[in-house]
């Protein structure tokens, strides 16, 4: 047994006092869960402490909270891990801090309004199968791997942990968000769905759609089920741009194309070309496109400052840096061989797992 101080951020909507912190002393084995600690406090000390919970085994998705500043399921976070779990902890004390999830309004104590944010966004992505026709008399015959693949996103338990700390949503509450995007992949990756292109176009063209993800990996770390929402968003982008050639109005596809082309042509990133091409189109002429012109005017102060500070020489900004001929040739050869493949080759670690050790040579 060990002593823990459970520090809970509480809120009673029927009082005017606002949120406050309360500490509970609980005695539990270190391998017990944060949920066990919360329930001990609730059962022994204060029955009014509000938390949603049900299965205790990380499958129902009810008990999403922040533990020491990080989103998690209370039920599968061990107390011993919670006390040294991260940035907010100082590693020495046995205090476990529990708060309601972020990015969603708090209803009471550790209970947040999932409907107002999480479920609303799930609804946004047409979250049901739009069957490919004709519907077969028996089952759809589809590849084994595809079903395992979409099961990764099917494994989402809708706990909201990824939504809680999504950094794009923090600055753009309208962002579709990691959970809904993963839900979208569940259909885009499902060969039985008939509307993949429409789904992708919808999410690519939406200014708050797949290209609004800031690639911060928060959701990957937050997810207790290995859904890796951000990885699914990247796959949605890849399928949207490369397989369906959807050129969105958010510059998402152009940015990706321009970046890749510049690295092919220069071997290194040519920042001065990237910006205009992302707005105007993927060629040297892109910068003369009206959209690029507007953006250039908008960015002019930044660029002018960079030049004024001798950060960037005008000639260098124009020419960029590039690899030596022989290395560029190697880069080209790699591009040709990989991009020349009829179908993209992807190693999905969710499917393949990690090898125990290299087989004997």
């Amino acid at each position, binding site marked *: 047994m060990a002593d823990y101080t459970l520090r809970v951020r509480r809120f009673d909507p029927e009082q005017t006092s606002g949120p406050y912190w309360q500490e509970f002393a609980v005695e539990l084995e270190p391998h017990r869960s944060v949920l066990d600690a919360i329930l001990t406090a609730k059962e022994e000390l204060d029955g009014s402490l509000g938390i949603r919970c049900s299965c205790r085994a990380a499958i129902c998705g009810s008990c999403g909270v922040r533990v020491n500043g990080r989103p998690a399921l209370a039920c599968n976070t061990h107390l011993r891990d919670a006390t040294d779990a991260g940035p907010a902890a100082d590693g020495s004390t046995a205090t476990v801090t529990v708060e309601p999830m972020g990015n969603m309004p708090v209803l009471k104590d550790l209970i947040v309004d999932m409907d107002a944010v999480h479920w609303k966004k799930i609804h946004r992505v047409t979250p049901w199968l739009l069957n490919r026709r004709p519907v077969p008399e028996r089952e759809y015959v589809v590849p084994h791997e595809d079903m395992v693949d979409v099961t990764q996103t099917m494994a989402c338990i809708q706990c909201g942990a990824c939504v809680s700390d999504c950094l794009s949503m923090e600055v753009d509450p309208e962002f579709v968000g990691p959970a809904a995007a993963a839900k979208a992949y569940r259909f885009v990756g499902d060969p039985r769905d008939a509307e993949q292109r429409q789904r992708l176009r919808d999410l690519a063209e939406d200014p708050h759609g797949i290209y609004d993800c800031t690639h*911060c990996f928060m959701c990957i770390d937050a997810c207790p089920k290995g859904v890796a929402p951000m990885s699914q968003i990247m796959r949605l982008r890849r399928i949207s741009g490369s397989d369906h050639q959807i050129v969105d109005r958010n510059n998402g596809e152009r940015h990706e194309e321009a970046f890749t082309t510049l690295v092919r042509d220069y071997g290194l990133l040519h920042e001065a070309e990237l910006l205009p091409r992302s707005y105007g189109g993927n060629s040297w002429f892109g910068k003369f496109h009206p959209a690029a012109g507007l953006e250039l005017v908008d960015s002019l102060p930044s660029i002018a400052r960079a030049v004024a500070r*001798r950060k960037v020489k005008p000639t260098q900004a124009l020419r960029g840096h590039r690899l030596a001929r022989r290395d560029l040739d190697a880069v080209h050869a790699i591009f040709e*061989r990989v991009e020349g493949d009829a179908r993209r080759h992807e190693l999905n670690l969710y499917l393949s797992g990690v090898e125990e050790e290299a087989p004997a040579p």
Partner: protein
Amino acid sequence: MRVAYWPGCVSRGFTPELHGSMEAVAPLLGLELVPLDRAACCGAGVIAEHNQELADTLNARTFALAQQVDGAELMMNICSTCQGAQSECQERLDANSAYRARVNATLDDAEPGLRYEKGLTNKNLLWLLVEELGLDALRAKVRRPLTNLRVGPFYGCYIVRPRARLGIDAEHPRDRYLHQVIETLGGTVIDYAGTYKCCGFPIVTMNKTASLRQAGTHLGDATDAEADCLVVPCPLCHLNLDLQQPQAAKVVGRPLAMPVLHLPQLLGLALGLEPKQLGMSKHVVKPTAVIDWSAAVVAAPAPA
């Protein structure tokens, strides 16, 4: 210590002061940098978004070139984004021998004889400082402790998440290293909301307002916490936090004048170099204009 040194693209492009300050500070740290100037861009996650195998192969080439550097103990980078993007590729390459063989076949085709062997060590300067050099050794090298300098650490997403891939655990609290280094150099760590958040750079072309709101919010939070400056191990963060700072100030509707230092610059100052030698005049928010480095903040050089 001899390292295969990967400077990345941006440190030689829009933030030349990063590469410059790294080269200036390396000898003081006892680092011999062997630049991987034949290697290509890591892809910054964008090439992987476009085609995973392409990003994996380009980085496998970089790794292979690093493994060819005679006497190098490991590969070192100075960019959170490179660290994250390359770690992601390496994770796949190391996980599966068949996939590695496939990528190596492409490498061999592009450049006969080139081959990546599983198990490269690739560390950001920050990790190298703590894990290879050691904080005690670093402390011993400090010539001018950053006494009274209030520094806000800003890690950048790619170097702190996902934790498992980046090897962050109780034994390797890599998400505390920037804090530790600031303290080792004699500075004061400022606790503010933005430390582990995103600078917004990845969506600057897609949703500029959201992007700049992120940068502006963190800069504002650091200002409110009375930081003198931020320090970043990532040049892309630097672009959004420094180069775009005036634009970000407009988006968040408050004046901002927060100097943002590259990690080697902060090291260089403490190790006795002058701001100018470290390219600090090249910043948009000039640290030299905001902080009086000569007297008020930085103590006099310690007696040798």
